[in-house]
């Protein structure tokens, strides 16, 4: 969105290459910066920023919404992938272990599952059922939908970091195939959110002749919203 030249490379060990253990990360010159927050700050230090036009109140609001997305959508995605037994067995284990030979694929995916479940327990989501999680996602989408309203982007006519983050999550939810479509249905209930995703996809991804390999947490199935 900042119009900076980038090249996206998919690697099986991206998670381990990152200095903090989380993707995405960028490699610029001989610096490596990981996670959205530090990347945004790094880019800002070089003089590019999407949120320069916002005043203090709006910046605080943007931060609040970004926190909401991180707490709700990200955690729901993790829950669905790692704590829902059916999904874990059929989708997540094969996908997470696919770059590795047996028995390493089993060992690594069980290790990751244990780690995510421990995190869920720490934040109190372990006791939630799938319905409760979907309810939370619904509420989050409702809040985002209300904030978006009929505008093209969350803050006036220019995209900001919040748009990038929301797009990343919603696009992944809408295009990843899971056992059931309940999660993507919840998002599809809000037509302005789907329109928002489509608009960004058209403008920034298909317009630049890129393949839709988005910089997301796991390598997801490549498919377009325009089905």
């Amino acid at each position, binding site marked *: 969105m900042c119009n900076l030249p980038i090249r996206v490379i998919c*690697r*099986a*060990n991206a*998670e*381990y*290459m990152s*200095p903090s253990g989380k993707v995405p990360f960028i*490699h610029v010159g*001989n610096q*490596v910066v990981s996670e959205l927050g530090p990347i945004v700050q790094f880019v800002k230090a070089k003089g590019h920023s999407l949120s320069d036009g916002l005043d203090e109140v709006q910046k605080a609001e943007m931060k609040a919404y970004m926190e909401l997305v991180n707490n709700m959508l990200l955690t729901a995605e993790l829950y669905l992938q790692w704590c829902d037994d059916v999904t874990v067995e059929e989708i997540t284990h094969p996908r997470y272990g696919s770059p*590795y*030979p*047996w*028995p*390493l694929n089993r*060992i*690594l995916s069980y290790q990751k599952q244990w780690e995510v479940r421990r995190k869920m327990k720490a934040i109190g989501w372990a006791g939630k059922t799938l319905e409760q999680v979907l309810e939370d996602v619904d509420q989050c989408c409702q809040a985002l939908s209300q904030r978006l309203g009929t505008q093209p982007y969350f803050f006036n006519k220019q995209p900001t970091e919040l748009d990038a983050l929301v797009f990343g999550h919603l696009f992944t939810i809408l295009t990843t195939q899971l056992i059931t479509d309940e999660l993507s249905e919840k998002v599809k209930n809000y037509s302005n959110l789907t329109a928002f995703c489509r608009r960004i996809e058209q403008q920034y991804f298909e317009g630049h002749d890129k393949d839709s390999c988005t910089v997301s947490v796991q390598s997801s199935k490549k498919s377009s919203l325009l089905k």
Partner: protein
Amino acid sequence: MGTVHARSLEPLPMAGPDFGALGEETELVEVEPETKQEILENKDVVVQHVHFDGLGRTKDDIIMYEISDVFKAKNLIDVMRKSHEARERLLRLGIFRQVDVLIDTCQGDDALPNGLDVTFEVTELRRLTGSYNTMVGNNEGSMVLGLKFPNLFGRAEKVTFQFSYGTKETSYGLSFFKPRPGNFERNFSVNVYKVTGQFPWSSLRETDRGVSTEFNFPVWKTNHTLKWEGVWRELGCLARTASFSVREESGHSLKSSLSHAMVIDSRNSSILPKRGALLKINQELAGYTGGDVSFLKEDFEFQLNKQLLWDSVISTSVWGGMLVPIGDKPSSIADRFYLGGPTSVRGFSMYSIGPQSEGDYLGGEAYWAGGVHLYTPLPFRPGRGGFGDLFRTHFFLNAGNLCNLNYGDGPRAHLQRLAECIRWSYGAGIVLRLGNIARLELNYCFPMGVQAGDRICDGVQFGAGIRFL
């Protein structure tokens, strides 16, 4: 043991105790020693019985193999020699704390006149021995616990367990060893281990968890080892400033490999040998039994020692190796060879020769290294006959090269690449021998042929280790 025969015993004089009159019709009692002197070496003997005292859980059959030669002895010196050899073999099994040998003539009804009985008095080791130490070093402290079960099932099987719990890393190892009864040189062992290593020259941290089984067997004068190893390797960066080439190698991989090693060793000692030669050839093929790392690795080591005048020894050694990745994946940093340091080409920093990226050394796929050493006793020979014998002065010339090969080119191009830009060094120093296992060196080195990117250590360099170029 000896018998005293009184040859002739004249009756005592009937006159009473009147010894005052000497020389009067008294005849002295003569007691003479055995006059027949036998030359023991030539006397034929037969070993009739071999007794064992002190066996507990050790099974009989392995003992019988070790002492079977004793029965074949033909004369007394032979019996003594074969009993000594049997004692050495029993101690080598590692199940006895002490073995004493007693040779005696046969007693009893079926005793032949030249029959001998050999008795081995043994003390078995305890069922479980343990050790506990703490180690401090390299900014890390750790507790090390070791347990050993010698002679677990009675046939010299040995189980050892070692566990190290440190402030930064933990590691453990469990190993089961079983020799073949009757042939200790043939044995197999199974190991399960986790080791961690930190390599600051590459800013790399490696954690290996693995299982390996190996068979050792001698063939004529050589010793062969066949080994299968399955290792789950996890690589990580040691510091945030690690270069991107090292960062790219982080992650998990599984290596499953078969390897074969052959060793011929005719040296009189493995540390500071005076004569003899060593040849070690090692092959490793990975990828055909699973795993995602696929390569063929060859490695050899050759050493020749010869004694010269005045207690000095000249020694030459050559090392070399090649790694050929199979398939289109490039080789992993954990499999490549490294060169340089006080134990290989002296005068350069530890493993700091060859391809590097931003100060991190990546290792190479082919290397060779050679050294010529002259060891002499210390000048003016202080402490001769005692402590001074552990020290030697040494003059050396080392050379080597390490590079990556492009396997599309032919062998001629490879040889050419290995022959250009040779790093070499010369110097002198003092070597201290530690037991039979390790040595310490303090050298003054002049590194030459330094290429851009190598890190040198000219001047005084200290080294400690087991295997030196």
